[in-house]
Protein backbone atom coordinates (compact mmCIF):
# COMPACT_ATOMS: atom_id res chain seq x y z
CA UNK A 1 0.00 0.00 0.00
CA UNK A 2 1.81 3.13 -1.21
CA UNK A 3 0.52 6.24 0.39
CA UNK A 4 1.27 9.81 -0.45
CA UNK A 5 -1.07 11.17 2.23
CA UNK A 6 0.72 12.85 5.12
CA UNK A 7 0.82 10.72 8.23
CA UNK A 8 -1.30 11.90 11.18
CA UNK A 9 0.06 11.25 14.65
CA UNK A 10 -2.42 10.36 17.37
CA UNK A 11 -1.52 9.61 20.96
CA UNK A 12 -2.56 6.19 22.25
CA UNK A 13 -2.76 4.53 25.63
CA UNK A 14 -0.65 1.54 24.63
CA UNK A 15 2.14 1.21 22.11
CA UNK A 16 1.17 -1.91 20.18
CA UNK A 17 -2.55 -1.23 19.84
CA UNK A 18 -1.69 2.38 18.98
CA UNK A 19 0.72 1.37 16.22
CA UNK A 20 -1.77 -1.10 14.77
CA UNK A 21 -4.59 1.46 14.86
CA UNK A 22 -2.39 4.11 13.22
CA UNK A 23 -1.03 1.80 10.51
CA UNK A 24 -4.43 0.51 9.41
CA UNK A 25 -6.01 3.96 9.62
CA UNK A 26 -3.22 5.46 7.53
CA UNK A 27 -3.61 2.68 4.96
CA UNK A 28 -7.29 3.56 4.59
CA UNK A 29 -9.08 1.35 7.13
CA UNK A 30 -9.96 3.57 10.11
CA UNK A 31 -9.63 1.57 13.32
CA UNK A 32 -9.68 3.10 16.79
CA UNK A 33 -7.12 1.96 19.34
CA UNK A 34 -9.70 0.16 21.54
CA UNK A 35 -11.10 -1.55 18.43
CA UNK A 36 -7.62 -2.81 17.48
CA UNK A 37 -7.10 -4.05 21.05
CA UNK A 38 -10.48 -5.78 21.21
CA UNK A 39 -10.34 -7.36 17.76
CA UNK A 40 -6.97 -8.82 18.66
CA UNK A 41 -8.52 -10.41 21.79
CA UNK A 42 -5.60 -8.92 23.67
CA UNK A 43 -7.02 -8.73 27.20
CA UNK A 44 -5.48 -11.31 29.48
CA UNK A 45 -4.06 -12.03 32.87
CA UNK A 46 -1.13 -14.27 33.74
CA UNK A 47 1.03 -14.75 36.79
CA UNK A 48 3.78 -17.14 35.79
CA UNK A 49 5.75 -18.34 38.82
CA UNK A 50 8.53 -20.08 36.93
CA UNK A 51 9.48 -17.16 34.67
CA UNK A 52 11.35 -14.70 36.87
CA UNK A 53 12.35 -11.09 36.27
CA UNK A 54 15.08 -10.20 38.78
CA UNK A 55 13.67 -12.75 41.20
CA UNK A 56 10.02 -11.79 40.75
CA UNK A 57 7.41 -13.81 38.84
CA UNK A 58 6.30 -12.63 35.41
CA UNK A 59 2.93 -10.91 35.58
CA UNK A 60 1.00 -9.75 32.53
CA UNK A 61 -2.35 -8.05 32.09
CA UNK A 62 -2.58 -8.55 28.33
CA UNK A 63 -1.48 -11.04 25.68
CA UNK A 64 2.28 -11.28 24.96
CA UNK A 65 4.01 -8.70 22.72
CA UNK A 66 3.18 -9.21 19.05
CA UNK A 67 -0.30 -10.59 19.75
CA UNK A 68 -2.11 -7.36 18.87
CA UNK A 69 -0.40 -6.97 15.49
CA UNK A 70 -0.94 -10.63 14.68
CA UNK A 71 -4.49 -10.66 16.09
CA UNK A 72 -5.75 -7.68 14.08
CA UNK A 73 -4.02 -8.89 10.92
CA UNK A 74 -5.62 -12.32 11.13
CA UNK A 75 -9.04 -11.22 12.31
CA UNK A 76 -9.46 -8.69 9.49
CA UNK A 77 -7.32 -10.46 6.89
CA UNK A 78 -4.93 -7.54 6.43
CA UNK A 79 -1.90 -8.18 4.25
CA UNK A 80 1.25 -7.27 6.18
CA UNK A 81 4.95 -7.73 5.51
CA UNK A 82 7.25 -8.29 8.44
CA UNK A 83 11.03 -8.59 8.50
CA UNK A 84 13.70 -9.36 11.06
CA UNK A 85 17.43 -9.05 10.46
CA UNK A 86 20.58 -10.79 11.56
CA UNK A 87 22.74 -7.85 10.52
CA UNK A 88 21.89 -4.41 11.98
CA UNK A 89 23.28 -2.53 8.95
CA UNK A 90 20.99 -4.51 6.66
CA UNK A 91 18.07 -3.76 8.95
CA UNK A 92 18.78 -0.04 8.82
CA UNK A 93 19.16 -0.12 5.03
CA UNK A 94 15.83 -1.93 4.70
CA UNK A 95 14.15 0.70 6.88
CA UNK A 96 15.59 3.50 4.73
CA UNK A 97 14.44 1.74 1.57
CA UNK A 98 10.89 1.30 2.86
CA UNK A 99 10.76 4.96 3.90
CA UNK A 100 12.09 6.07 0.51
CA UNK A 101 9.27 4.07 -1.08
CA UNK A 102 6.88 6.24 0.93
CA UNK A 103 5.86 3.59 3.42
CA UNK A 104 4.91 4.17 7.02
CA UNK A 105 6.77 1.54 8.99
CA UNK A 106 6.15 -0.10 12.37
CA UNK A 107 9.21 -1.05 14.42
CA UNK A 108 9.84 -3.02 17.58
CA UNK A 109 12.52 -1.51 19.77
CA UNK A 110 14.06 -1.25 23.21
CA UNK A 111 12.82 1.65 25.32
CA UNK A 112 16.22 2.19 26.91
CA UNK A 113 18.06 3.43 23.82
CA UNK A 114 15.36 5.82 22.60
CA UNK A 115 16.72 9.30 23.41
CA UNK A 116 13.32 10.98 23.49
CA UNK A 117 12.11 8.90 26.46
CA UNK A 118 12.35 10.59 29.85
CA UNK A 119 15.30 9.26 31.87
CA UNK A 120 13.04 7.70 34.51
CA UNK A 121 11.13 5.65 31.95
CA UNK A 122 14.19 4.18 30.28
CA UNK A 123 14.28 0.53 31.25
CA UNK A 124 15.56 -2.40 29.23
CA UNK A 125 12.17 -3.33 27.83
CA UNK A 126 12.55 -4.67 24.30
CA UNK A 127 8.97 -4.92 23.10
CA UNK A 128 8.12 -1.28 22.56
CA UNK A 129 6.40 -0.47 19.25
CA UNK A 130 6.66 2.78 17.33
CA UNK A 131 6.13 4.15 13.84
CA UNK A 132 8.67 5.81 11.58
CA UNK A 133 7.00 7.96 8.94
CA UNK A 134 9.95 9.72 7.35
CA UNK A 135 13.55 10.85 7.39
CA UNK A 136 15.07 14.27 7.76
CA UNK A 137 18.84 14.49 7.44
CA UNK A 138 20.32 12.09 9.99
CA UNK A 139 17.09 11.83 11.98
CA UNK A 140 14.13 9.53 11.74
CA UNK A 141 10.71 11.12 12.11
CA UNK A 142 8.96 9.05 14.74
CA UNK A 143 5.33 8.74 15.73
CA UNK A 144 5.61 7.05 19.11
CA UNK A 145 2.01 6.24 20.06
CA UNK A 146 2.47 6.83 23.77
CA UNK A 147 3.78 10.39 23.25
CA UNK A 148 1.66 13.49 22.79
CA UNK A 149 3.63 14.80 19.82
CA UNK A 150 5.82 13.32 17.11
CA UNK A 151 9.50 13.02 18.01
CA UNK A 152 12.88 12.53 16.32
CA UNK A 153 15.49 9.86 16.76
CA UNK A 154 19.04 9.85 15.40
CA UNK A 155 20.23 6.94 13.33
CA UNK A 156 22.76 5.54 15.85
CA UNK A 157 20.20 5.43 18.68
CA UNK A 158 17.58 3.90 16.41
CA UNK A 159 20.00 1.16 15.44
CA UNK A 160 20.80 0.44 19.08
CA UNK A 161 17.11 0.44 20.02
CA UNK A 162 16.13 -1.92 17.21
CA UNK A 163 18.96 -4.35 17.78
CA UNK A 164 19.19 -4.39 21.57
CA UNK A 165 19.74 -7.91 22.92
CA UNK A 166 18.07 -9.65 25.84
CA UNK A 167 14.57 -10.91 26.62
CA UNK A 168 12.05 -10.29 23.80
CA UNK A 169 14.84 -8.97 21.55
CA UNK A 170 13.34 -7.29 18.49
CA UNK A 171 16.04 -8.40 16.02
CA UNK A 172 15.22 -5.24 14.11
CA UNK A 173 11.60 -6.27 13.54
CA UNK A 174 9.87 -3.96 11.07
CA UNK A 175 6.42 -4.31 9.52
CA UNK A 176 3.99 -2.44 7.31
CA UNK A 177 0.54 -2.81 5.79
CA UNK A 178 0.61 -3.99 2.21
CA UNK A 179 -2.98 -4.88 1.42
CA UNK A 180 -6.35 -4.11 2.99
CA UNK A 181 -9.23 -6.59 2.89
CA UNK A 182 -11.94 -6.02 0.27
CA UNK A 183 -14.49 -5.70 3.05
CA UNK A 184 -14.56 -5.84 6.83
CA UNK A 185 -17.42 -7.68 8.47
CA UNK A 186 -17.42 -6.34 12.02
CA UNK A 187 -20.68 -8.18 12.72
CA UNK A 188 -18.71 -11.40 12.44
CA UNK A 189 -15.25 -10.25 13.55
CA UNK A 190 -16.33 -8.68 16.85
CA UNK A 191 -18.22 -11.70 18.29
CA UNK A 192 -15.42 -14.00 17.12
CA UNK A 193 -12.81 -11.83 18.86
CA UNK A 194 -14.87 -11.77 22.07
CA UNK A 195 -15.25 -15.55 21.99
CA UNK A 196 -11.48 -15.95 21.51
CA UNK A 197 -10.82 -13.63 24.45
CA UNK A 198 -13.37 -15.46 26.60
CA UNK A 199 -11.45 -18.68 26.04
CA UNK A 200 -8.26 -17.11 27.42
CA UNK A 201 -9.86 -15.41 30.41
CA UNK A 202 -12.38 -18.04 31.52
CA UNK A 203 -11.33 -21.35 30.04
CA UNK A 204 -7.53 -21.48 29.96
CA UNK A 205 -6.42 -24.92 31.12
CA UNK A 206 -3.59 -23.39 33.17
CA UNK A 207 -4.09 -22.34 36.79
CA UNK A 208 -2.03 -19.14 36.45
CA UNK A 209 -3.87 -17.72 33.43
CA UNK A 210 -7.10 -15.72 33.23
CA UNK A 211 -9.61 -15.49 36.07
CA UNK A 212 -8.02 -18.49 37.79
CA UNK A 213 -4.68 -16.70 37.66
CA UNK A 214 -6.16 -13.63 39.36
CA UNK A 215 -7.60 -15.70 42.19
CA UNK A 216 -4.26 -17.46 42.50
CA UNK A 217 -2.58 -14.05 42.89
CA UNK A 218 -5.13 -13.18 45.59
CA UNK A 219 -4.34 -16.36 47.51
CA UNK A 220 -0.59 -16.01 47.12
CA UNK A 221 -0.61 -12.54 48.76
CA UNK A 222 -2.09 -14.07 51.92
CA UNK A 223 0.27 -17.02 51.71
CA UNK A 224 3.31 -14.72 51.52
CA UNK A 225 2.10 -12.71 54.50
CA UNK A 226 2.06 -15.90 56.60
CA UNK A 227 5.59 -16.89 55.61
CA UNK A 228 7.90 -15.34 58.22
CA UNK A 229 10.89 -15.46 55.85
CA UNK A 230 9.17 -13.61 53.02
CA UNK A 231 6.69 -11.41 54.84
CA UNK A 232 8.94 -8.45 55.57
CA UNK A 233 11.06 -7.86 52.52
CA UNK A 234 9.80 -10.09 49.71
CA UNK A 235 6.07 -9.32 50.09
CA UNK A 236 6.42 -5.51 49.68
CA UNK A 237 8.78 -6.06 46.74
CA UNK A 238 6.31 -8.49 45.19
CA UNK A 239 3.39 -6.10 45.65
CA UNK A 240 5.41 -3.21 44.24
CA UNK A 241 6.18 -5.39 41.24
CA UNK A 242 2.50 -6.28 40.73
CA UNK A 243 1.58 -2.60 40.81
CA UNK A 244 4.46 -1.56 38.59
CA UNK A 245 3.59 -4.14 35.95
CA UNK A 246 -0.03 -3.03 36.32
CA UNK A 247 0.40 0.71 36.08
CA UNK A 248 3.63 1.52 34.36
CA UNK A 249 4.41 -1.12 31.79
CA UNK A 250 2.26 -0.61 28.75
CA UNK A 251 -0.87 1.06 29.93
CA UNK A 252 -1.31 -1.05 33.01
CA UNK A 253 -3.71 -3.70 34.16
CA UNK A 254 -6.48 -1.26 34.96
CA UNK A 255 -5.73 0.67 31.77
CA UNK A 256 -6.22 -2.45 29.68
CA UNK A 257 -9.56 -3.10 31.40
CA UNK A 258 -10.68 0.43 30.54
CA UNK A 259 -9.48 0.03 26.97
CA UNK A 260 -11.45 -3.20 26.65
CA UNK A 261 -14.45 -1.41 28.14
CA UNK A 262 -14.08 1.27 25.47
CA UNK A 263 -13.88 -1.45 22.82
CA UNK A 264 -17.11 -3.05 24.07
CA UNK A 265 -18.86 0.31 24.04
CA UNK A 266 -17.79 0.96 20.48
CA UNK A 267 -18.61 -2.62 19.47
CA UNK A 268 -22.10 -2.35 20.97
CA UNK A 269 -22.83 0.62 18.77
CA UNK A 270 -21.26 -0.74 15.60
CA UNK A 271 -23.02 -4.13 15.61
CA UNK A 272 -26.14 -3.09 17.51
CA UNK A 273 -25.75 -5.42 20.48
CA UNK A 274 -26.85 -3.66 23.69
CA UNK A 275 -25.61 -6.50 25.91
CA UNK A 276 -22.05 -5.42 25.08
CA UNK A 277 -22.77 -2.05 26.68
CA UNK A 278 -23.70 -3.77 29.91
CA UNK A 279 -20.52 -5.84 29.75
CA UNK A 280 -18.57 -2.64 29.13
CA UNK A 281 -19.87 -1.20 32.41
CA UNK A 282 -18.88 -4.40 34.25
CA UNK A 283 -15.39 -4.24 32.74
CA UNK A 284 -15.06 -0.60 33.80
CA UNK A 285 -15.91 -1.62 37.37
CA UNK A 286 -13.22 -4.30 37.20
CA UNK A 287 -10.73 -1.63 36.09
CA UNK A 288 -11.74 0.63 38.97
CA UNK A 289 -11.16 -2.25 41.38
CA UNK A 290 -7.68 -2.85 39.95
CA UNK A 291 -6.95 0.84 40.52
CA UNK A 292 -8.11 0.56 44.11
CA UNK A 293 -5.68 -2.34 44.54
CA UNK A 294 -2.79 -0.31 43.11
CA UNK A 295 -3.59 2.60 45.41
CA UNK A 296 -3.83 0.54 48.62
CA UNK A 297 -0.87 -1.71 47.76
CA UNK A 298 1.42 1.24 46.97
CA UNK A 299 0.48 2.91 50.26
CA UNK A 300 1.23 -0.29 52.18
CA UNK A 301 4.56 -0.73 50.41
CA UNK A 302 5.54 2.82 51.35
CA UNK A 303 4.43 2.28 54.94
CA UNK A 304 1.77 4.98 54.72
CA UNK A 305 -0.78 2.36 55.69
CA UNK A 306 -0.15 -0.81 57.76
CA UNK A 307 0.37 -3.93 55.64
CA UNK A 308 -2.96 -5.74 55.40
CA UNK A 309 -2.54 -8.74 53.11
CA UNK A 310 -6.07 -10.14 53.56
CA UNK A 311 -7.57 -6.78 52.50
CA UNK A 312 -5.39 -6.68 49.37
CA UNK A 313 -6.19 -10.28 48.58
CA UNK A 314 -9.87 -9.44 48.95
CA UNK A 315 -9.61 -6.62 46.40
CA UNK A 316 -7.97 -8.98 43.89
CA UNK A 317 -10.79 -11.49 44.46
CA UNK A 318 -13.27 -8.69 43.73
CA UNK A 319 -11.39 -7.91 40.51
CA UNK A 320 -11.75 -11.57 39.54
CA UNK A 321 -15.47 -11.61 40.44
CA UNK A 322 -16.18 -8.46 38.45
CA UNK A 323 -14.28 -9.68 35.42
CA UNK A 324 -16.01 -13.06 35.71
CA UNK A 325 -19.38 -11.27 35.63
CA UNK A 326 -18.33 -9.30 32.53
CA UNK A 327 -17.14 -12.44 30.76
CA UNK A 328 -20.37 -14.29 31.53
CA UNK A 329 -22.33 -11.44 29.89
CA UNK A 330 -19.93 -11.54 26.96
CA UNK A 331 -20.15 -15.31 26.59
CA UNK A 332 -23.89 -15.06 26.12
CA UNK A 333 -23.75 -11.95 23.91
CA UNK A 334 -21.13 -13.37 21.56
CA UNK A 335 -22.63 -16.83 21.15
CA UNK A 336 -22.95 -18.04 17.58
CA UNK A 337 -26.07 -16.40 16.26
Amino acid at each position, binding site marked *: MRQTLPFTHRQS*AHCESGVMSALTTHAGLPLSE*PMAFGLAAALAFALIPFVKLSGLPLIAYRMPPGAIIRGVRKRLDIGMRRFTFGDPEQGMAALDRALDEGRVVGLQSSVFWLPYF*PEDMRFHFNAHNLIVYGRDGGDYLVSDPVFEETVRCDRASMKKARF*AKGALAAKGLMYFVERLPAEVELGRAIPAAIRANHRVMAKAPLPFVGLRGMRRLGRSIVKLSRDPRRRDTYLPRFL*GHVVRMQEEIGTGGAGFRFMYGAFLKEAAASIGEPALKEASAAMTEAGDTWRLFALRASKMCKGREPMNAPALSDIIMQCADREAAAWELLRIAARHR
Partner: protein
Amino acid sequence: MDANDVPQDRIPTYGGRRKLFYAVDRDGSYVAVRSSGWEAEAVATGSALEEIECLRQDAWRRAQAGTTSPLEYYMTCRRMDLALLAQTTGYSPWRIRRHFRPAVYARLSDRVLSRYADALGIESVTLRALVERP
Protein backbone atom coordinates in the same frame (compact mmCIF):
# COMPACT_ATOMS: atom_id res chain seq x y z
CA MET B 1 -12.78 5.39 35.92
CA ASP B 2 -14.57 8.69 35.69
CA ALA B 3 -13.00 11.18 33.28
CA ASN B 4 -12.74 13.68 36.15
CA ASP B 5 -10.87 11.12 38.26
CA VAL B 6 -8.09 10.57 35.73
CA PRO B 7 -5.09 11.33 37.94
CA GLN B 8 -3.18 14.55 37.37
CA ASP B 9 -0.49 14.14 40.02
CA ARG B 10 2.34 15.53 37.84
CA ILE B 11 4.65 12.70 38.79
CA PRO B 12 8.39 13.25 38.25
CA THR B 13 8.92 9.96 36.39
CA TYR B 14 6.86 11.25 33.44
CA GLY B 15 9.41 14.04 32.95
CA GLY B 16 6.66 16.58 32.27
CA ARG B 17 4.94 14.39 29.70
CA ARG B 18 1.41 13.06 29.71
CA LYS B 19 0.02 9.61 28.96
CA LEU B 20 -3.37 8.75 27.53
CA PHE B 21 -6.07 6.89 29.42
CA TYR B 22 -9.57 5.76 28.57
CA ALA B 23 -12.21 6.94 31.02
CA VAL B 24 -15.97 7.34 31.23
CA ASP B 25 -17.52 10.78 30.86
CA ARG B 26 -20.78 12.16 32.30
CA ASP B 27 -23.12 10.48 29.83
CA GLY B 28 -21.38 7.11 30.19
CA SER B 29 -19.38 7.09 26.98
CA TYR B 30 -15.68 6.32 26.83
CA VAL B 31 -13.30 9.19 26.11
CA ALA B 32 -9.51 9.45 25.88
CA VAL B 33 -8.04 11.68 28.58
CA ARG B 34 -4.42 12.80 29.06
CA SER B 35 -2.90 12.22 32.48
CA SER B 36 0.17 13.79 34.07
CA GLY B 37 0.61 10.64 36.16
CA TRP B 38 -0.63 8.89 39.26
CA GLU B 39 0.95 8.82 42.70
CA ALA B 40 0.58 5.00 42.88
CA GLU B 41 2.53 4.58 39.66
CA ALA B 42 5.18 7.03 40.86
CA VAL B 43 5.69 4.91 44.00
CA ALA B 44 6.10 1.71 41.99
CA THR B 45 8.45 3.22 39.42
CA GLY B 46 10.31 5.10 42.13
CA SER B 47 11.17 1.95 44.06
CA ALA B 48 12.42 0.26 40.88
CA LEU B 49 14.59 3.31 40.18
CA GLU B 50 15.84 3.31 43.77
CA GLU B 51 17.00 -0.28 43.39
CA ILE B 52 18.93 0.67 40.24
CA GLU B 53 20.44 3.73 41.94
CA CYS B 54 21.59 1.62 44.91
CA LEU B 55 23.41 -0.75 42.58
CA ARG B 56 25.03 2.17 40.78
CA GLN B 57 26.26 3.85 43.95
CA ASP B 58 27.55 0.60 45.36
CA ALA B 59 29.50 -0.12 42.16
CA TRP B 60 30.79 3.49 42.14
CA ARG B 61 32.22 3.15 45.65
CA ARG B 62 33.88 -0.16 44.86
CA ALA B 63 35.26 1.12 41.56
CA GLN B 64 36.71 4.17 43.30
CA ALA B 65 38.22 1.98 45.99
CA GLY B 66 39.73 -0.17 43.25
CA THR B 67 37.97 -3.37 44.28
CA THR B 68 36.11 -3.61 40.99
CA SER B 69 36.82 -2.37 37.49
CA PRO B 70 35.10 0.65 35.87
CA LEU B 71 33.31 -1.88 33.66
CA GLU B 72 30.98 -2.98 36.45
CA TYR B 73 30.20 0.64 37.27
CA TYR B 74 29.46 1.50 33.64
CA MET B 75 27.25 -1.58 33.38
CA THR B 76 25.11 -0.33 36.28
CA CYS B 77 25.06 3.16 34.72
CA ARG B 78 23.39 1.63 31.69
CA ARG B 79 20.89 -0.17 33.98
CA MET B 80 22.19 -3.52 32.78
CA ASP B 81 22.81 -6.70 34.71
CA LEU B 82 25.46 -9.30 33.98
CA ALA B 83 23.09 -11.44 31.91
CA LEU B 84 22.10 -8.57 29.63
CA LEU B 85 25.68 -7.34 29.19
CA ALA B 86 26.67 -10.90 28.33
CA GLN B 87 23.93 -11.16 25.70
CA THR B 88 24.76 -7.75 24.27
CA THR B 89 28.52 -8.34 23.99
CA GLY B 90 28.39 -12.04 23.23
CA TYR B 91 30.91 -12.66 26.03
CA SER B 92 30.09 -15.26 28.65
CA PRO B 93 29.11 -14.03 32.13
CA TRP B 94 32.16 -15.57 33.78
CA ARG B 95 34.44 -13.87 31.29
CA ILE B 96 32.82 -10.51 32.03
CA ARG B 97 33.08 -11.17 35.73
CA ARG B 98 36.79 -11.72 35.21
CA HIS B 99 36.92 -8.31 33.53
CA PHE B 100 35.47 -6.85 36.73
CA ARG B 101 38.89 -7.53 38.30
CA PRO B 102 40.81 -4.24 37.95
CA ALA B 103 44.12 -5.94 37.14
CA VAL B 104 42.57 -7.98 34.33
CA TYR B 105 40.58 -5.02 33.05
CA ALA B 106 43.68 -2.80 32.81
CA ARG B 107 45.23 -5.27 30.38
CA LEU B 108 42.23 -5.63 28.04
CA SER B 109 42.95 -5.20 24.35
CA ASP B 110 41.41 -2.40 22.31
CA ARG B 111 39.33 -4.98 20.47
CA VAL B 112 37.68 -6.33 23.60
CA LEU B 113 37.20 -2.81 24.92
CA SER B 114 35.56 -1.64 21.71
CA ARG B 115 33.02 -4.45 22.07
CA TYR B 116 32.13 -3.07 25.50
CA ALA B 117 32.10 0.46 24.08
CA ASP B 118 29.56 -0.66 21.52
CA ALA B 119 27.38 -2.53 23.98
CA LEU B 120 27.29 0.27 26.55
CA GLY B 121 27.32 3.22 24.20
CA ILE B 122 30.42 4.61 25.96
CA GLU B 123 33.65 5.64 24.19
CA SER B 124 36.71 3.43 24.72
CA VAL B 125 38.73 6.30 26.21
CA THR B 126 36.04 6.78 28.83
CA LEU B 127 36.00 3.06 29.53
CA ARG B 128 39.72 3.20 30.37
CA ALA B 129 39.06 5.90 32.96
CA LEU B 130 36.42 6.14 35.68
CA VAL B 131 33.85 8.85 35.05
CA GLU B 132 30.78 9.27 37.23
CA ARG B 133 28.44 10.37 34.44
CA PRO B 134 29.59 8.67 31.24
